């Protein structure tokens, strides 16, 4: 099958995955019973999920643990056969694992190492060169580009076990991208990294996407990843899609309220309950916050200014973490 410009590189239709897991109660008696007779139950990890992703998009795939994110990524990268539904990635059905498919996509799992610990990353890169059938020229140009973005030269000579987590992730990404995939499935690519390493990986992904036009579907528990990279997000919970749309629309749709931050003269503490729902925020900026429905913001602000001795007032969207948290549980 050939792709034309209008065919989305990722198209998913009613994709479902049900696992059979052994079901046994705790305790010794149940363990003995389970040894002789297993009882199974079905876990619906993904239930009839549908979406399309356009060429060059970076989409954040969000959901609490066990929501079905990784299962979906595994089906899209061909590791898992679905229980039902269809998926088309770059014109291929992923789980048929055709060479043409495997050569044009990549999967990065932040919690699982691709690189061998005992050998320098440079050696693993050479193995990948052979596995993906890259000519020396292709390899050199691909590596040159990745090196320019990730500054790999120094670190790829050391055995991987001696690298810091951040350095290792750079190498993991490079190893996953040497064959210039057109679709990237990234499962928690920044997990465990410190803030500055996270920022570097984010900047890299953004630049890589800009240069290559690759389509990226990524999961992350770090909202900073999502806000920096993704204009669009898909929220999945209990295997079902709860939201699919622009990140900027999410708060309007899911949490149509604003936070009014207030600082009062003489630092007095005012009971804000009459104005809305007082909230405590983690950042200790000395301000008091009250949550009010979006349409009432101007009225409440006017009342506050009239009735209280306000020194400073800010109006902000609720933090994205809260909004997403709310989206999960709706």
């Amino acid at each position, binding site marked *: 099958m050939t792709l034309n410009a209008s065919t989305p590189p990722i198209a998913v239709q009613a994709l479902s995955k049900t696992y059979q897991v052994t079901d046994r109660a705790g305790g010794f008696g149940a363990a003995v019973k389970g040894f002789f007779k297993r009882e199974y139950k079905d876990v619906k990890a993904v239930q009839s999920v549908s979406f399309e992703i356009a060429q060059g998009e970076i989409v954040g795939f969000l959901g609490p643990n066990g929501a079905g994110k990784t299962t979906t990524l595994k089906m899209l990268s061909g*590791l898992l056969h679905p229980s039902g539904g269809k998926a088309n990635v770059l014109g291929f059905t992923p789980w048929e694992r055709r060479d043409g498919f495997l*050569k044009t996509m990549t999967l990065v799992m932040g919690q699982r190492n691709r690189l061998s610990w005992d050998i320098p990353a440079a050696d693993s890169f050479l*193995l990948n060169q052979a596995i993906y059938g890259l000519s020396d020229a292709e390899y050199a140009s691909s590596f040159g580009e990745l090196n320019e973005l990730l500054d790999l030269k120094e670190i790829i000579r050391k055995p991987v076990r001696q690298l810091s987590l951040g350095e290792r992730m750079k190498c993991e990404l490079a190893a996953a991208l040497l064959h210039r995939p057109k679709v990237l499935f990234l499962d928690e690519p920044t997990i465990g990294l410190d803030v500055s390493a996270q920022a570097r990986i984010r900047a890299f992904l953004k630049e890589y996407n800009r240069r290559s036009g690759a389509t990226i579907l990524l999961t992350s528990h770090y909202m900073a990843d999502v806000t920096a990279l993704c204009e669009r997000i898909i929220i999945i919970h209990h295997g079902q899609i709860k939201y699919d749309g622009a990140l900027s629309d999410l708060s309007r749709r899911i949490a149509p309220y604003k936070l009014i931050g207030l600082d009062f003269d003489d630092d007095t503490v005012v009971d804000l309950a009459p104005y809305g729902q007082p909230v405590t925020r983690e950042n200790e900026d000395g301000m008091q916050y009250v949550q009010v429905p979006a349409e009432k913001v101007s009225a409440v602000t006017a009342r506050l200014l009239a009735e209280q001795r306000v020194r400073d007032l800010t109006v902000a969207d609720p933090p994205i973490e809260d909004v997403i948290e709310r989206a999960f549980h709706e």
Partner: protein
Amino acid sequence: MRRILRVISAHVRVNLQQDLAYRVDTLVNIATMMAWLGYDLASIAVLFGSAQNINGWLAGDIIVLLGVFRMLNTLMMSIVWPNTELFNRGIREGTLDYVFVMPVNSQALISIRRIQVWQVVNVFVAAALILAGIATSGTPVSLGEAVSFLVLMVSGAALIYALWIVLISLTFWFTKFDNNVSLLQALIDTGRWPASVYPMWMRLLVTFVVPIAVATTVPVQALRGELSPLEAVGYFAVGVAGFGLASLVWRAGSRRYSGASS
């Protein structure tokens, strides 16, 4: 096929660099290997100091058998055991996932990710033992015997490799199965001696269940002219069939594979 060869040669190169980088380790390994060779030869000398033959096997035959066993054991030590460890770790940690997203035959890839290249020294030692054994026994070897010996040695090794693939594939069905190869590991040393020295139950075990005898005793029997052409073809066919069957089992197992967690 060309890509597989390219992937194999890349792995050999990278692993050889490893062996060279850790040269003390490699030299100690080679020295240990030589010490075991001395031990093996000494035990043969002790045995034949008091006996003319063992169940009809002369000293020369036993030395040839030792050479064949060493060839097989080199396969196990250089490729099979190291890759078993890597495979089991990959199952536990979920990193085996990456094997299945690579555009290369997954069975071939899991078989060659680790190669102790220095063990190639052992191949020469084994070949020398085989030649020395033939010289010791003094019986002339016909071309047909030599060819069937070589072919059965290769098909026998292929059979053991196939058994290994089947055993590790079982992990796909049972998930927690770290002992997948322990039976093979425990029995491999039986290949040092002709199958006929063992009690009947053991002989049946190493011929039909874990066919180490097929990979060691049988080729030497071919060399000694003890196999009928039909038997020789039969054993060869078993090797080829085993190899094919193993790749079917691997494919079925890998379809079941769903990673260490959802």
